[in-house]
């Protein structure tokens, strides 16, 4: 099976649902997206399991998530050349050329609304993605460079965050993989997209990426505080309404920092180049996580 066969068949599916000529949409390497008229056809990552995706599709199509998560054109999951394929309405993504104008507050409010949906109102969901991805990303490292060793040390310094996420969230609906690419504008409103990691978990993990970017000094404080304030104003339950949000955010944001740093060093090694400034900032942040965690341990316990 070639990628061309897959794309061609996805184009035929798109033409059936959306009409219009098919064009491929750039996305991450393990996923393929074809747009045809009013729909996009998505080939999920190779090896994706059907059963959890079926549950996620049922939830995405459920009225309780209306206006929060993009509703699929059909709940049906097709299999094309061993890949799971789903069909969604096309929308306008956030403009990557203008991240300053990105709808941070809309994202925050959508997450707050998603987190507030009672789990019992939705079809049964698998665990949210997020915590499991950290370990998967770190296992790609070999420890062959000083930077990789820092990342591995930071990973080893973290307490069991998968177990902590299970405890802290008590199984609330969460997106599982939120970043600026996970929203589209459709019908004049922003909605969340991508149900691949939708599930029950600790909603603080949905704030972990921007929290990690802010802690690393990459995201402007003004943007972070706008995002956090919008989340709180919308009743978001991942952090206390007032007071210190970092008691809830520290561990997810540190784990995300480790994941981002691991992905960065893996990408640099693959491309045979040195780390750039942003990637080096992530390694420096991992170093501070090690110091922070060892300071936590040295506090005598009662």
């Amino acid at each position, binding site marked *: 099976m070639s990628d061309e066969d897959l794309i061609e068949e996805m184009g035929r599916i798109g033409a059936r649902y959306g009409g219009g000529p098919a064009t491929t949409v750039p996305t*991450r390497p393990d996923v393929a997206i074809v747009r045809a008229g009013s729909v996009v056809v998505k080939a999920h990552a190779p090896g994706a399991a059907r059963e959890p995706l079926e549950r996620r599709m049922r939830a995405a199509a459920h009225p309780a998530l209306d206006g929060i998560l993009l509703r699929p054109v059909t709940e049906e999951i097709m299999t094309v050349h061993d890949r799971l394929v789903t069909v969604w309405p096309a929308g306008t993504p956030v403009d990557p050329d203008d991240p300053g104008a990105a709808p941070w507050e809309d994202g925050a409010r959508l997450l707050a609304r998603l987190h507030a949906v009672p789990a019992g109102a939705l079809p049964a969901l698998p665990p949210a993605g997020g915590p499991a991805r950290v370990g998967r990303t770190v296992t790609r490292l070999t420890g062959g460079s000083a930077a990789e060793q820092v990342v591995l040390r930071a990973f080893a310094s973290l307490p069991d965050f998968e177990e902590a996420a299970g405890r802290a969230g008590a199984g609330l609906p969460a997106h599982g*993989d939120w970043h600026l690419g996970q929203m589209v504008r459709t019908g004049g409103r922003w909605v969340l997209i991508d149900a691949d990691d939708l599930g029950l978990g600790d909603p603080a993990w949905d704030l972990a990426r921007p929290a990690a*970017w802010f802690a*690393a000094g990459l995201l402007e404080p003004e943007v972070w505080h706008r995002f956090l304030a919008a989340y709180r104003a919308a009743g978001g339950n991942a952090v206390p309404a007032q007071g210190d949000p970092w008691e809830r955010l*520290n561990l997810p944001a*540190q784990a995300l920092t480790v994941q981002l740093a691991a992905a960065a060093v893996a990408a640099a090694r693959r491309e045979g180049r040195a780390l750039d400034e942003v990637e080096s900032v992530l390694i420096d942040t991992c170093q501070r*996580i090690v*110091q922070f965690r060892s300071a936590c341990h040295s506090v005598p316990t009662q």
Partner: protein
Amino acid sequence: MQCPKCRGNMRTYERNGVHIDQCDGCRGIFLDYGELETLTRMESQWSQQQHAAPPPPPPPAHGAPGWGAPAPHYGGHYGHHRQRSWVGMLFST
């Protein structure tokens, strides 16, 4: 009384029980015997009060986590290379 330095006229003030003679001309100050010790004592009392006072409450530490960057890295001095990997990270899994 005449200023021992510039021969100007000296005026007497009292501040918290300490006599101070100050010259109208050069603004120089003359202390009587024991007045320097009085000032030193008052100073040490003041600083003891400061030490005895409860420390001021810490500022609300909700701004940034303890493991956060001491100095920000945003700002425009990284050039397009930074922009590329930063924007990529904002939009990718």
